[in-house]
């Protein structure tokens, strides 16, 4: 994994964006941009090419699942790795995310080691 890779963190809770940035920083990633929901994330993606999207599931305006579907349907972002972060790991939700093309998912609460392991799987290291 390139420590300089650009990561888009999407979460409506500023506290969780801060925690994700702290955890990604602990793993060695500091090139992080933020969005507070799916709609804002799409705006950010118009102007920024990112190497990874880390998104919450439940957000107002546009959920993480709808963001994922939109990202996968757009030619310029369809192959961008997408890590879904969710407070729930209920079976229906997981199945829906996998069908929509999620690269991997992580259930809150999480440690830096868990995030590192998921990223290693996504980037096949």
């Amino acid at each position: 994994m390139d420590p300089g890779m650009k990561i888009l963190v999407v979460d409506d809770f500023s506290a969780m964006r801060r925690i994700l940035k702290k955890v990604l920083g602990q793993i060695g990633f500091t090139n992080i941009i933020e969005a507070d929901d799916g709609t804002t994330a799409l705006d950010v993606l118009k102007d920024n090419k990112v190497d990874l999207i880390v998104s919450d599931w439940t957000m107002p305006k546009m959920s993480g699942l709808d963001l994922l579907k939109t990202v996968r349907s757009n030619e310029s972002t369809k192959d961008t790795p997408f890590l879904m972060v969710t407070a729930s790991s209920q079976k229906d939700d997981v199945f829906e995310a996998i069908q929509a093309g999620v690269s991997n998912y992580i259930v809150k609460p999480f440690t830096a080691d868990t995030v590192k392991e998921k990223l290693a799987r996504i980037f096949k290291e």
Partner: protein
Amino acid sequence: MDVKLINPFIDATMNVLETMASIKVRPGKPYLKKDQVAKGEVSGVIGLTGEVSGTLSVSFSETSILSLVSNMFGEEMKEIDEEIKDAVGEITNIISGHARKKLEESGRSLKAAIPTVITGKNHTITHITPYPVMAVEFSTDNGGFTIEVCFEE
């Protein structure tokens, strides 16, 4: 209400806070709530719906939440500000998600609503229900907090 229903919430609270904040939290004995006085200065409340309706609330003392969030952020937090309130909402959400996963494993599927956060010294949380409210007080090295769970069944 089946008193065992509170156990997934106790487990979830311990797991969530110990994982996110690396702080040991110690649960007391569950009891039936008889008064309406919240045990803290900032509370997160979330509605649960599905086969049964219910509510989860988590009320923190100032010292406990400042200590927990300071550890979560890796930075010292000194007062209950917007970021602390935001964190309480998210903690409530995550505890609910974790407990719902455990409940799903025992055959109860529930959905959560959007969390609400209430602040203020000695504020009151009233669960408008004829059903009993179960409560558990937790202690940490920096003050305590309380969870309350109510299901209409």
